[in-house]
Each structure stands twice: as structure tokens, then as C-alpha cells.
């Protein structure tokens, strides 16, 4: 199998202190492989080594030991940067430039002609939801959320095959987060690999196929998100919201389904089942009692527990 990212024994020590230098290990022998075409979640607490890993992959810092390849090429080869995108954590750009000028400048660095730069600027700033009236505003007047959107737009200017997003939801309001989530999901549909570090577990649940969890610079778990959850002894459940019927009226029939539970809510009920096949049974009971379906959603309630278990 070919991997788009291959990390071998990656280690990074930082020297701290002024007179008496002391080494602090930020990353400790990381081994990781990421397949192409997926959204890969990179999890870990503060100081776990996520940003250090991404910075090494971007050649912003140099590893103390180990090696890494992106798209089959060693990370020291900056030519691969023409095929990758990167949005740093809390992105900060030249604040004397306007959003459109920044996009144009970055387009120049990729060697695009003027017409292409103009087209891509309009296309991407629209895609990340930046209001057209803000395109010609200097970045020093931008809010954190607006800068985050510009950061995402610039990371896609070269139509990358893989994009590295360091805390992409940081600073965004709930609507912004939903829009960016949709944008990231859209990248996967176009075959772009997304390597995303985030603290927001609901984003990982909603988007990621595979994840890696870092703890104090070491890899503590990696693999398919569902497999990891199952291995940790927890199971995925499904939440069914219905209206037009009370929990009291459904209680007896629902209790016949193994593992199912029901709670009352305004104008309806909330039912949880463990198996996907039980969804039909629930819907049949609800219809018989005169109720209608509002929503069905998978719930991986154990990701938080898995995260806590792997980082403690």
C-alpha cells in the first residue's frame, strides 16, 4: 500500500534555558503512516507534539532524529511544497496586505499567471465564506475568524494533493465551523488528503476516517476511528429523535429492543439503540403510535473517553 505521509522514528529535542541549556523532548520516536484520500485526525493535549510534528513536515523546524516523507519525497525537498497546502495554527499574515493581495502574492510564489491568480483568489475567498466586501480590506482589520478563513483559502491556492491544517476551527463561530467542516469534507470528495490537528473532538467524529493520538510526544494510538473505539470496549450508538408521540407511549415496546433506551423531550422522545438494524424496528414502533421521525444520528460517545484514556 502506498502512503502519502510516512514518518519514521521522528524525534525533536528543544534546548531551553540561557546559560545552562537543557534539552526538552517534544517529539519522541514518532512512527506514522497516512493513506491518501482520507481525512486524518491528529489528536493530543496541549504540548503533546502535534504542532511540532506538522512544523517538521513543513521544514519549519528540523528533526533531532528520524525522517519523514510526503508524497514519496523526503521533507527536505522543498519542491514537494508545490503539491501541498498548509494552514498554521492561529494564522498570521502580512497585515499591511489586503486579503486579495495576500492571495495574489502567494499565487505568484507558485508561479501562476495573473489571470489564474485572480480567478483562484475569487474562487477560494468565496469558498471559505469571506464576504466580498472584505476582500479589499487590510488584514490588520480582520478578526481571528476572518484570518482563519484567509488561512484556509491560501492553503488551497495550489490545488494541493495534501493539506495540513493546524487547528482549522480555531476562532470560528458555530456557523463558520460548520462551513469549514463542509469545506474539509468536500476536499476529501475531490481526493485531497487532509491531515488535521484539532482539540475539537466533535469535528474529529464528524470528519475523520483515521486518527492518531499523541501523548507527551509519543504516539499512544493510531488507526481507524471506529476500530479504536471498539477496541477500547465502547460501541457506537444511534440517536433517534421523534415527535408527535410521548416517551411514555413508546416505553414498553422500545424496552423490548436489547440495549435500547428512551428519554422524554419537548413534543416527542429521544431513543438510543446500539445496532444499526434496530433503527427500522424503532421507526416502525414510532409510526404505529402516530409519531414521525425528526432525525437519526450516529453517536460515538466514547471518543472523549478514548482521548482521556490515551492521553493520561
Amino acid at each position, binding site marked *: 500500500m502506498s502512503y502519502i505521509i510516512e514518518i519514521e522514528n521522528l524525534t525533536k529535542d528543544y534546548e531551553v534555558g540561557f546559560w545552562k541549556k537543557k534539552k526538552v523532548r517534544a517529539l519522541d520516536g514518532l512512527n506514522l503512516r497516512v493513506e491518501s484520500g482520507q481525512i486524518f485526525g491528529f489528536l493530543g493535549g496541549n504540548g503533546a507534539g502535534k504542532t511540532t510534528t506538522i512544523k517538521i513536515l513543513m521544514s519549519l523546524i528540523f528533526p533531532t532524529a528520524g525522517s519523514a516523507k510526503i508524497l514519496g519525497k523526503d521533507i527536505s525537498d522543498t*519542491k514537494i511544497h508545490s503539491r*501541498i497546502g498548509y494552514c498554521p495554527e492561529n494564522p498570521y499574515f502580512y497585515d499591511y*496586505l489586503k486579503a486579495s493581495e495576500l492571495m495574489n502574492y502567494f499565487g505568484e510564489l*507558485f508561479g501562476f499567471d495573473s489571470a489564474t491568480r485572480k480567478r483562484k483568489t475569487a474562487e477560494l475567498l468565496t469558498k471559505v465564506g469571506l464576504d466580498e466586501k472584505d476582500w479589499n480590506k487590510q488584514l490588520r482589520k480582520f478578526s481571528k475568524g476572518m484570518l482563519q478563513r484567509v488561512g484556509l483559502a491560501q492553503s488551497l491556492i495550489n*490545488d494541493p494533493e495534501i493539506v495540513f491544517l493546524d487547528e482549522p476551527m480555531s476562532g470560528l463561530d458555530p456557523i463558520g465551523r460548520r462551513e469549514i467542516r463542509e469545506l474539509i469534507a468536500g476536499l476529501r470528495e475531490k*481526493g485531497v488528503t487532509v491531515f488535521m490537528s484539532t482539540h475539537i473532538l466533535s469535528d474529529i467524529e464528524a470528519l475523520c476516517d483515521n486518527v492518531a493520538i499523541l501523548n507527551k510526544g509519543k504516539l499512544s494510538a493510531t488507526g481507524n476511528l471506529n476500530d479504536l473505539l471498539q477496541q477500547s470496549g465502547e460501541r457506537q450508538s444511534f440517536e433517534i429523535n421523534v415527535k408527535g408521540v410521548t416517551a411514555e407511549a413508546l416505553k414498553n415496546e422500545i424496552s423490548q429492543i436489547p440495549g435500547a433506551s428512551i428519554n422524554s423531550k419537548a413534543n416527542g422522545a429521544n431513543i438510543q439503540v446500539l445496532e444499526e438494524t434496530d433503527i427500522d424496528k424503532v421507526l416502525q414502533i414510532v409510526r404505529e403510535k402516530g409519531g414521525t421521525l425528526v432525525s437519526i444520528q450516529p453517536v460515538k460517545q466514547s471518543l472523549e473517553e478514548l482521548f482521556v484514556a490515551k492521553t493520561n
Partner: protein
Amino acid sequence: MNQENSVRISISNTIRSIALNTFREAVRDRVLYNLVVFVLLITACAIFLGDLTAGQEPRVIVNLGLSAMLIFGAFISIFVGVSLVSKEIEKRTVFAIFAKPIGRGEFIVGKYLGLCLTLLINVLVMGIGVSLALWYVEGGALVGSIWGTIVLIFLQLTILTAVAILFSSFSSPALSALLAFFVFVIGNFSASLKDLATHLGSSGAKIFFGIIYYLLPNLAHFSFITNAANNETPPAAMLGGAFLYAVVYNIILISLTVLIFSRRNFK
């Protein structure tokens, strides 16, 4: 996907883009506002000096104008020069830049040339200002003699900029500015430094000052302001020698900067 990525990214285009962006930064950060002060100074000289300097106004304008050009330029070279790279690191703008297909060497060269372009515009506008003032007070007889000196001033400023960038690649902006200022002062008195090395009794001191003399740029090669005020133009050999000296010295300084900068971690 990626058809457009096949566009050849040429090094010269990358350097040009970085240089022009650096120039734009200087303009938007109001670096060229010093020209307003300069123009006011020269205008005041042209209008008021006539009463004070009986027939010497052109000489005074040349002396004052070119010296101000050198001092203003040195301030820009040192203070903008030391912040060129350090500001990018401190504000973390380098993160997005180095994720693009550009080398650290191209970045340094682009930033350096961008500031040189700013200085060039600065000395050109100032040169025009001094020429207009001379034309106003004496019909322009000295105008022809100042432009060779202006070229020398610009070359001196390119060296000072390279010195400032070199220091800022490994030390703090404040310390870099201080060191670059020392180089500017010592470099302009390097002939005295050589005399000092020759006349000192101790051989250790002779070697020490000798090393400093040869290590630091000899900015006296670019000093011609007093001569220009006496209606002299720098000889072609001096201009050619100064040009070569500046090119070689700048290449060495920028290469050293690239070498240091290429090993830096951007935490």
C-alpha cells in the same frame, strides 16, 4: 487537479515577488515618509541659507543634502534591515511562506533586494530634491557633480543593509541594530583604524585592529560628500572599484546570512 502546479516556478520570479512585497511593506509602513522631512529640510536650506552663508549656499546644500541622505538612508538600512527577517519570525508570517515552494536563500535575497529597492527610490527622490534646491539657488552648476556621490551613498547603504540582515539572522533586533550602527561608524573611519593598528606598540593590539580593519567594510571607499561640495565628481576608477567592492562584500554577507538562516528552527 494540479495541472497548474506544472507551471515552472522560477527562482528569479520568486525573488522578484518577495522583493516587491518587501518594497510594498516599506511603503505601507510609511518608511518613505522620511522624504517629507528631507524635502522640508532642503527647502528650508534653499530659502533661508542665502542670508547666512554669503555665496556658499550651493556648497552648504550639497553638504547638508548628501549628509542627510546618508544619515536617513543609514537609519532605514539599520532599523528596517534588522526587522526584515526578525519581524517575519516574531509575527510567524514565515510559517505560511516556507510552506510554499521557496528556499530560505531566495527569501533572504528577495527581502534584501526589496529593501535595496526602497533605498534606491529614497536616494533618487532625495537626489532630485537636492538638484532642485541647487537649481533654485545657483542655476544648477553643481547638479552634475552630486549624482556620482549619490551612487556611492547608495552602494554604502546596500552594504549596511546586508550587515543589518546578517546580524539579525542570529541576534535580537536591538543588539543587531547596535552592532550595525557600530559597523557604520567604524566603517566610515576605517582609515583611522588602520593608522591606529600601525602606530600601536603592542603586536597583539596591532593584530586585533588589523583584523577589524580587514573584517569590517571599508566605507571610506564610498565617502565623497565633501569633494562633491567642492564641485568634484568621483573618478570612474573610484566608482568602478566601489561598485565591485560593494558587490563582492554584499555577496559574502548575504551568503553568510543564508547559511545561518537555513539552519534556523522556527518554533
